[in-house]
């Protein structure tokens, strides 16, 4: 049940998490995208406005040049005064020198402020013309010139606006000065709200039905409005690319997050399964221990009551054979305990519970439990504690497991000893470790078999010959326990003289 509620909780959190992260991705992309798009738009507007400005400037230069030329003619005419014949001759010469002037004549002054005027675009025999009227100073006449603008228009229209943009100009009345589209004579003013005497930019649908960006500049001298127009797909290409990039990034980010969450869910599922399996293994081994020990315990307790004389005295032989039965049963119990320990170690269910422990007290307790046994087999058991008054500090270790390890060493030292032999257990503090030594005067380990001494179920040949009961698991278990405590277990031995096992455990 706990497993399923955990999975459902994950389902509950998973989608809001995806949505939350998705929102973050979108917002983080918007943060750079929005100003970038604005920059692109402004950049396109500036680019087109610059082109329109250049063209407007050239148009004004054209007019100003014509005005200067007319000014020079005016001065010449003024010099001849009232002589009309001379004035006409000058005009003829002027027209011969200036091909784009169609005609020039003198007319009564039309402007009271002394300023020139320029007409809108007109057509004259298929040519586009403008009329320029410039007053002669200090007189009441004006020069009236008709100028063709065909060449200047062609020159202006050659300016390029991007790859597929276009340029056009209109006069004050909205008449087309020049336009790339043939047949377009007038521009819809309602869609050109941005065009003003101060210039401007705007987007609109042009006569070809395209959605475009237009930038307009007013040429004040000639009175034309020049517009540089470009399809939005070209003008804002970078903007669209950026949007595409942002969408791709967001999509990639979302895909990544979804993969992350799916992987996380899988990992969690595997981890939970492993945990459940670990728990099941642990419970299985506990039950196995119980089932194996139950008949052995029944036998042990029944025989012990007989040996204790609870049901009457026993004769010597009854006692002897019952004692053997009891001891054999005890061995089986020890074997079951050792097998269970090894099974737990191999399955990773051999849990360690380290706590601060007085290792000296622990060692003393273990040695005391062997005193009766040692006496029984005529082995002298000695415990040597540090001579210095300085106590060995508390060490963090699993007391139960370390006790088992030391227990196994002392048990072996007594069991594989000679009658009248000795087992010396000592403990000493060094700089970084505590050293526990169990030294015996037993049978030792043959040199050729030293390498296998910590292998499970290994028993040396000389020990097998002794016909002493054992299963070869004690040292394997001790070795495993000490290693788990980041300690070491080593030995020195000489066959027929004895063995000394040394455990070192780190002080920290």
């Amino acid at each position, binding site marked *: 049940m706990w497993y399923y509620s955990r999975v459902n909780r994950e389902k509950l959190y998973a989608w809001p998490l995806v949505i939350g992260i998705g929102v973050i991705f979108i917002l983080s992309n918007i943060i750079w995208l929005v100003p970038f798009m604005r920059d692109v738009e402004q950049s396109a507007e500036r680019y087109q406005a610059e082109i329109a400005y250049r063209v407007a400037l050239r148009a004004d230069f054209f007019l100003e040049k014509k005005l200067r030329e007319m000014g020079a003619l005016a001065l010449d005419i003024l010099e001849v005064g009232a002589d009309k014949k001379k004035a006409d001759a000058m005009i003829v010469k002027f027209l011969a020198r200036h091909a784009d002037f169609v005609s020039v004549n003198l007319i009564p002054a039309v402007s009271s402020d002394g300023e020139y005027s320029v007409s809108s675009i007109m057509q004259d025999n298929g040519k586009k013309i403008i009329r320029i009227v410039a007053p002669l100073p200090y007189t009441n006449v004006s020069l009236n010139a008709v100028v063709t603008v065909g060449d200047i228009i062609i020159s202006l229209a050659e300016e390029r606006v991007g790859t597929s943009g276009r340029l056009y100009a209109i006069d004050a009345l909205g008449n087309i000065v020049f336009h790339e589209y043939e047949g377009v004579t007038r521009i819809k003013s309602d869609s050109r709200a941005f065009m003003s005497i101060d210039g401007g930019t705007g987007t609109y649908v042009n006569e070809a039905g395209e959605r475009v960006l237009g930038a307009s500049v007013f040429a004040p001298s000639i009175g034309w409005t020049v517009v540089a127009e470009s399809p939005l797909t070209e003008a804002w290409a970078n903007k669209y690319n950026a949007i595409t990039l942002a969408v791709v990034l967001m999509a990639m980010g979302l895909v990544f997050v979804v993969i992350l969450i799916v992987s996380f869910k899988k990992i969690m599922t595997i981890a939970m399964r492993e945990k459940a399996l670990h728990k099941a293994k642990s419970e299985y081994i506990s039950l196995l221990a119980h089932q194996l020990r139950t008949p052995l315990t029944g036998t042990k*307790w029944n025989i012990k*009551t007989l040996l204790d004389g*609870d049901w009457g005295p026993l004769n010597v032989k009854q006692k002897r054979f019952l004692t053997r039965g009891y001891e054999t049963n005890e061995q089986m119990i020890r074997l079951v305990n050792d097998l269970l320990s090894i099974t737990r170690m191999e399955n990773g269910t051999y849990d360690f519970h380290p706590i601060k422990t007085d290792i000296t007290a622990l060692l003393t307790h273990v040695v005391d439990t062997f005193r009766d046994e040692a006496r029984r087999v005529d082995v002298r058991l000695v415990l040597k504690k540090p001579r210095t008054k300085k106590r060995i500090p508390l060490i963090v270790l699993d007391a*139960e497991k370390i006790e088992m390890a030391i227990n196994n060493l002392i048990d072996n030292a007594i069991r594989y000893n000679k009658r009248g032999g000795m087992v010396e257990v000592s403990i000493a503090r060094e700089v970084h470790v505590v050293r526990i030594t169990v030294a015996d005067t037993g049978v030792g380990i043959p040199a050729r078999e030293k390498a296998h001494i910590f292998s499970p179920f290994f028993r040396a040949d000389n020990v097998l010959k002794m016909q002493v009961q054992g299963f070869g698991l004690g040292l394997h278990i001790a070795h495993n326990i000490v290693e788990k405590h980041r300690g070491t277990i080593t030995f020195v031995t000489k066959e027929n003289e004895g063995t000394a096992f040394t455990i070192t455990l780190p002080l920290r």
Partner: protein
Amino acid sequence: MAKVVLVIEDDIYMRDVLVAKLTKEGFTVFEAIDGSVGLDMTAQKKPDLVVLDIILPIMNGFDYLEAKAKVSAIANIPVIILSNLGQREDVERGMKLGAKDYLVKAHFTPNDLMVKVRSCIG
């Protein structure tokens, strides 16, 4: 008057030797083969001590301890757990549920139990 001990143990060999040993030692002994019968008998007989196994049919030893603690009339009756479940967490659980002691059967003898029983109820 002899002290009364209730033995709750499903294994017949263990139960017989426990009952026999306790009787020999002068206790009045009752027996139950599962936790549920054990709980009923605890309520009926109100023993001075319960010797309790853990792995039991119908109601295990831990559940027995939890149920016993809820009945005020029998909550304070001392319990010695005698089980072959010997893992640290089992011992901790048993002591946490109010047992006075926890003995792993395979590691103790009948006389060891008697020492514990006498220290509990005299």
